[in-house]
């Protein structure tokens, strides 16, 4: 459904700071895929998501999306125009919501993702109760604080809200960039639970970057390992579910020429 064809991304091209972030990545994400992405720092994981969502334009190669049988080339499409196809959750809980606006106002913004905004009321009564119902599902007590400013919420609550905002209108693909990395283990588990709930409920395909190898194995049906801008391991189905952290570490060492995985990967 989502296709990346030999995507190359070079930052600061032609300067001393030149950095090859993506080195000819080809990837096909299917309609029913939940892909987890792992790799060391600077492997190109975040760049991969950013090229998909349009924050960065690829230096060469194409990104395209199959929407109901029609192939759409995204490479030239601006970030806010692509937003109708993608739901996004960031690593930083502050990133996905507008802190100075109310919970329900944030949801109303998300409700219009991909639509032209006009001069009718931003927050309609009927919608407000719908938002309340959806939030009540999470069991976080947010449904009673609909007119509270989002800035007053905890990181976990904000990530849960961002997840709901990303999936309020069913996206073609959900992009999760280490969205539990900044949370404590208990909250992270809760946010992962909500992630699974939301993606399963609406059958939303997802690409999730994680530093946690156990999570990478536990969640999803497909696992990708990246190193130096390339996909070095792509495994799915049976083979994936029988993986152990040990196998991944071994793979990583082989692929990166005997180098040890970095501390964050080991500790995870």
């Amino acid at each position: 459904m989502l296709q990346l064809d030999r995507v190359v991304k070079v930052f600061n091209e032609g300067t001393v700071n030149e950095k090859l972030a993506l080195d000819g990545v080809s990837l096909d994400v299917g309609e029913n895929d939940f892909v987890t992405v792992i790799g060391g720092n600077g492997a190109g994981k975040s760049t991969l998501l950013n090229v998909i969502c349009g924050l960065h334009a690829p230096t060469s190669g194409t990104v395209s999306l199959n929407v109901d049988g029609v192939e759409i080339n995204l490479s030239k499409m601006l970030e806010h125009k692509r937003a109708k196809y993608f739901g996004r959750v960031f690593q930083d809980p502050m990133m996905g919501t507008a802190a100075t606006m109310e919970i329900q106002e944030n949801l109303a913004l998300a409700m219009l993702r991909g639509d032209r905004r006009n001069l009718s009321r931003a927050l309609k009564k009927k919608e407000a109760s719908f938002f309340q119902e959806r939030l009540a599902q999470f069991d976080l007590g947010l449904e009673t604080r609909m007119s509270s400013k989002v800035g007053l919420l905890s990181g976990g609550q904000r990530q849960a809200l961002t997840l709901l905002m990303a999936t309020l209108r069913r996206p073609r693909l959900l992009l999760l960039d280490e969205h539990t990395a900044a949370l404590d283990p208990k909250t992270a588990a809760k946010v992962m639970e909500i992630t699974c709930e939301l993606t399963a409920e609406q059958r939303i395909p997802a690409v999730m970057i994680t530093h946690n190898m156990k999570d990478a194995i536990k969640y999803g049906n497909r696992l990708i390992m990246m190193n130096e801008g390339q996909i070095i391991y792509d495994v799915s189905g049976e083979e994936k579910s029988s993986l152990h952290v040990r196998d991944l570490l071994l793979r990583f060492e082989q692929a990166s020429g005997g180098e040890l995985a970095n501390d964050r990967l080991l500790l995870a």
Partner: protein
Amino acid sequence: MGVIISVYGGIGQGLLWAVLGIGVYLTFRILDFPDLTAEGTVSLGCAVGLQFINEDISPLIATLLAALIGIFAGLCTGLLHTKLKIPAVLSGILTMIALYSINIRIMNGGTSVSIQSSQSILAPLKNAFMDMGMERQIATHTSTAVVGLTACALVIALLYWFFGTQVGAAMRATGSNERMCRAQGIDTDSMKILTLCLSNGLIAMAGALVAQHMSYGGTNVGTGSIVMGLAAIILGEAFMGKRSPFYVKLALVALGSVLYYIIITLIIFYGLLLPTDTKLITAAMVVLAISLPRFRRLARIALDRLGFGKADKKEKFMMEPQLRANQKIEFKR
């Protein structure tokens, strides 16, 4: 008695300038964009409004046309910033300085224009009040206050409606978190340009109104207006609660502008300082208002160390976000 009449005049002037304060509030507070175009836009509003009146166009229409032309000044700054990637402050300064030349062109090569006071938007009201038996000066002040109050009420009502719409909400969100906006499909560049247009339209309108009140206007009227707008915002924010609805916030900015003018009027009335010293006073007021929370905190810490501290830990913790919010006025980028 004299002081009361002077203060009454100050209230009227403050209400006319309040439209500027509200315009500045849109960029500084809602968009978080320090827009220095304002200085040029005020004078633009003066020049355009007065020249149209001199062409025998009705003062109301001349004022609205001034607002319309002001929108283009905002558009210019917005395009410089979003399309040519020029930093916010510099974009504003560039438009401001370009407007200086343009304003002089509009005024046929002069640096100021004047009208007969009978041509201004205030004149019919003033005459009506005088017919009702008011003294000339009181009638002038009353008409100023009525026009100022009407302008503020209309602007606040319009903005309250607008910021409740889908586009208005997208504009507020752009000022709050740009990355999130683009992820939600909002064209943040357009939203910035739109806010700058709206803000400068209001600022030019304020310029046209003030110029009619003085029967005179020119390149020097705008000087320091941005800091004056800020002073109005900061004075108004002293009364703002965290949960104040949007229209109350705008009304408090207008109140801030009135308070500012009362202070300035009193200073001049008692001959404490020269009228030309007001800019210095304005700058000092803004500095004081911004730095006050910092001093208060330092004082509290000092008291705590000496063992006189009253605030328990929880209270101090609750205080922090408010302090930070107060300090958030520094220029970005």
